[in-house]
């Protein structure tokens, strides 16, 4: 046995990686499998999970239901599909707003004198020291003053506010890495400030925008706190749906199915996105 271990590089590799692998299995794979198994189960009247293999939860999520008002056959209700679409839509809009609002700030910080840069970054990060939920609560008073509370716009404002630092930081990193002599070279070659920005700054900062998009889009898809507190009960996202199934409705099987669908949708959007733009790494040399 020891002899084989000494000779086989792959066996050594496996052994060295095993602590990390065990960690991954215990903390990621097993819980995920539990959710998958639960999503195919059924709920008994007390809210316990009966482990069967049925697609009922998924079918229900797609809007098809056996208990119709008239009591015959199946009928269609688009409620859950609307929730899913709303979640994707909100995540997209939030991402776009964080890019549009975050970019000028990231640009400003990146072009500030080196000494002031750290101070500005610090100011961007300071709000994160306060608890997420408390920051959302703080918005209640502000939004109420503008008579916006419990509207979809309020949820958008909250989301953008919560996640904009995660967009600014990678964009800043990209912008800060651009050699200032490139701006001078562009100016020297006849490009005005606007054209320098469009031809040089923007393309070179895209990796940061891509990385920021990944960091904002994915968590926004799953968050329920912001919509819960600022949207009232009317503005339901997948996150809220899942949370309510586990806590209020006591139907973990349906909640698990919604979680799997959320994960699947996020994966699909991200695969399409990264196929097109990559993961936000350096400019790819081909």
């Amino acid at each position, binding site marked *: 046995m020891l002899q084989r271990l000494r000779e086989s590089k792959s066996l050594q590799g496996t052994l060295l990686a095993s602590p990390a692998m065990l960690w991954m299995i215990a903390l990621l794979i097993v819980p995920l499998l539990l959710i998958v198994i639960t999503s195919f189960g059924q709920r008994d009247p007390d809210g316990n999970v009966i482990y069967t293999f049925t697609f009922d939860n998924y079918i229900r999520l797609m809007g098809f239901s056996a208990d119709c008002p008239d009591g015959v056959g199946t009928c269609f209700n688009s409620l859950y599909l609307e929730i899913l679409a709303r979640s994707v839509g909100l995540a997209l809009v939030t991402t776009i707003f964080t890019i549009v609002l975050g970019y000028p700030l990231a640009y400003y910080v990146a072009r500030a004198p080196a000494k002031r840069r750290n101070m500005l970054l610090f100011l961007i990060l300071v709000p994160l020291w306060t608890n997420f939920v408390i920051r959302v609560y703080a918005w209640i008073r502000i939004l109420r003053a503008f008579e916006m509370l419990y509207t979809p716009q309020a949820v958008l404002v909250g989301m953008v506010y919560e996640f904009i630092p995660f967009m600014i930081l990678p964009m800043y990193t990209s912008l800060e890495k651009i*050699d200032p*002599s*490139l701006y*001078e*070279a*562009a*100016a*020297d*070659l*006849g*490009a*005005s400030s606007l*054209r320098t920005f469009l*031809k*040089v700054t923007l*393309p*070179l900062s895209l990796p940061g925008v891509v990385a920021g998009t990944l960091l904002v889009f994915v968590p926004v898809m799953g968050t329920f706190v912001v919509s819960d507190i600022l949207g009232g009960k009317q503005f339901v996202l997948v996150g809220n749906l899942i949370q309510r199934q586990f806590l209020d409705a006591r139907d973990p099987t349906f909640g698990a199915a919604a979680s799997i669908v959320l994960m699947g949708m996020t994966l699909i959007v991200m695969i399409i996105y990264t196929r097109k733009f990559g993961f936000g790494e350096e*400019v790819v*040399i*081909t």
Partner: protein
Amino acid sequence: MTAIAVELKDVVKEFAEPEKKGEAFAAVNHVDLQINDGEFFSLLGPSGCGKTTSLRMIAGFELPTSGEVLIHGKAMGKTPPYQRPVNTVFQSYALFPHMTIIDNVAFGLQMKGVAKAEIEPRVKEALSMVRLPGYENRKPKQLSGGQQQRVALARALVNRPEVLLLDEPLGALDLKLRKEMQLELKTLQREVGITFIYVTHDQEEALTMSDRIAVMSKGHLLQVGTALEIYEEPNCRFVADFIGETNFVPGTVVSVEDGRAEFEADGLRLVANANADVRAGIQATLAVRPERVRLSAEKPDDTPNAFIGSVSEAIYIGTDTHFRVNLTPSVSLRIRRQNTVPIGMPALAGPAGNTVWVSWHPESARVLVE
């Protein structure tokens, strides 16, 4: 009379000094300079002398605190870089990493709105001018330092600027490549006939390529002249010291007549050329180049500057032998003798302690005011 391509009129550039709050530091201090059309002109000096700042003011990246920059007689004022008839080759090359070579070179033409049909042949021509055809579709990072240098050159030259500004463009290359590029740059400049303004801290580079050189130190322009002028007739100690190697002998000026000075140093009576600002009776410095001092066994009779000295050091380095010879307890000279014959004077190259005659012609030395 040749036309003037670039003129600096009493230009001052001050920067706020971060350590001393509010106090300004003059990177360029009252510089007057005229650069002729079609000239290869070098700004030479140690780092921090103001040469790069001067270049950046011509390019328009910095604006003078006072004074005026003129390009072909036109005052530039606050004209932004993209409206000036000059192009720059940057020290770091500053190639756009996300663009191919062809896009990099075409950038300036696209910005100026040159017709598409005209851009391609001009880019091709520029790339072949810098001997870099066949790399059009690569990205800058796929090229070596020397090749990137050529792309930077092509990117600037393709715009046919009135003046090309080069900011230590060969600094990042290794010695052999640098020497090659020096000659190539000189040839290229002659071919295109554009005025080149070249910033460097390397005196040999400046001497090799330039028609004229301006030596700068601490923001001041010290001397402008051809390689010959600044090497043979330095107007101050800094220039004599910075360009090449020089022996400095401190002493007193005894008399000055017709540009010749009689000079006394530690009991030695010397005769040398004198700069215009040298007056009888003042403390001054005699500068004499190591290769101009001769060694001989007999007293030479063609010069008043002949003294007995003792060799304290003799180092054979192949092409030359370097000597250190003491003339008096306080006056010692470094002397360089070319080994044109196989150790012609073994006694001289021999052990330290030998006595020899040390001599030089009056026109080989200069008396400078500090």
